[in-house]
């Protein structure tokens, strides 16, 4: 656990907390971007270049922009009158803590379940590519099919309905 890890962890957590606690929706979206960037840097610190850069490309380049667009298009950029905090925040907190506990327990249990090796695996982009079109080709194709279906669905939703022409 190097000091860099702690710095990045603090950055990521601060981004995440700010995205929940800030009052302005666009500020929240930008704070979430900081959390995404922190996660990407954590991946890079673990020497997972591909995952880190894909995280930046997909989450900052696409997801954050999508969130921002959604906020602007729904006119949510103005502050609501009753405040932004939900009255049931306590329930949300309990559920989040529960999920975190389960995940933490799973991670901690895996340390004893899977034998640890001291050798750091070196995974190059080349290996990832080969694995994707070799061993994991079926999941890849299923994901591709799902995305194609989603794209076609989006086009159909956005399509203009043809009006009956007056005779």
């Amino acid at each position, binding site marked *: 656990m190097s000091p860099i890890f702690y710095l990045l962890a603090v950055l990521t957590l601060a981004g995440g907390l700010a995205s929940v606690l800030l009052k302005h929706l*666009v*500020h929240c979206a*930008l704070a979430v*971007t900081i959390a995404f960037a922190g996660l990407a840097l954590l991946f890079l610190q673990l020497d997972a*270049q*591909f995952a880190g*850069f*894909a995280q*930046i*490309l997909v989450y*900052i*380049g*696409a997801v*954050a*922009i999508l969130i*921002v*667009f959604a906020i*602007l298009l729904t006119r949510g*950029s103005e502050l609501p009158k009753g405040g932004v905090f939900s009255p049931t925040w306590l329930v949300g907190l309990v559920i989040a803590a529960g999920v975190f506990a389960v995940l933490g327990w799973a991670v901690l249990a895996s340390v004893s379940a899977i034998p640890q090796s001291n050798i750091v695996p070196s995974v*190059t*982009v*080349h290996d990832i590519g080969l694995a994707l079109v070799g061993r994991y080709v079926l999941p890849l194709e299923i994901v591709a099919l799902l995305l194609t279906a989603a794209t076609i669905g989006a086009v159909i939703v956005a399509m203009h309905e043809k009006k009956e022409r007056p005779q």
Partner: protein
Amino acid sequence: MTANFLAVNSLFVNLDQIFVLLRNWLVGFLPAALQPAAGVLLGVIAIVSVFPGLFALTTVFERKGLGRMQNRLGPNRVGPYGLFQPIADGIKSLTKEDIVPFSANAVVHFLAPLVLVVTVFMGFAVLPMGRNMVLVDMDSGLLFFFAMGAATELSVFMAGWSSRNKYSLLGAMRAVAQMISYEVVLLLSAVSIVMITGSLSLTKIVAAQNQYTGIFPHWYIFTPWGLAGFIVFAIAATAETNRTPFDLPEGESELVAGYHTEYSGFKFALFFLGEYLAMFALSGLGATLFLGGWSAPFSFLGWVPSWIWFFSKVMCAIFIFIWMRGTLPRLRQDQLMNFAWKFVLPFTLLNLLVTALWRFMGDGWQRWVVCTAILAAAYVIMGRLQMRSQHFGRRSYRYAE
């Protein structure tokens, strides 16, 4: 005679590696523990000083060139032939008042230009600018470049939204929509290079092209899929950098200046710098992917230092950017989107298939014929079909008549 030849040869090898040797010489003064860090620092200093210098030169070059195209003189007051104009501009932007609108979101307004310039500079880290001249030789360099490019979009949005100005917001929305649409195309056109090279590392991509048949190089632009990919890449790069004919985000006759309307002084200069740096970075990437990076155009020109080739390719691309700005009118928003999603994107997807076909047809003349025929037929058919749905004719006015 032989000794003489060898001496000349080693002179050119040294000239080719002059920056690498210079860095090693400077780093040699430090203790061994500090040397790697100092080497990287020197590389960063070189990038951070060379490209803004090039930016200053390009602004004069652009204003002079545009002036010539529009039959006027261009800047000619400061220094000989107006060459010191960028210095005057720099001093002006430094001494101007930094105005932040009253209702602007001050923090985001302040951060936007910084995020833009920092992310754009990051892209240069993976570009091989000459033999052994790359700051970080990453295994997934191409992915890094695109990741940094994606991050610039957010800064454009931040600038437009935080200014609290309808022109800024409109400009930012246009810019983000345009950049997302053309980024898909930009990525997909680079994917065909990755398919052929089998690597995301930009140094490996250049090395794969640095071979010669006779005197001609193995640049990817000299293949059917490479030519199609290069044209698509050039279109997408023009749109990504908001240059004419895709300069809708800052169309000054419609939106004042788009997302940087409310910026003044040095912050405005930073936006200007970021825009030109993005042009350099994308030109450099295009040269690396399709035009052989730092390799010479003919085998007998291999003695010219490799960095000269890289920078001359970049500057040629910049000249074409300027030329287009002086020539083409601006597109309309719907034309821009239709062009991206209905013509360029299908064509790029087809190009991916053609690249796969090229890869698996093996050597021989057949693949040249088949691949060229498919691409040409697709271009003609798609173009004809889409032109048919455009009804050209006398303009009909809805309200004016």
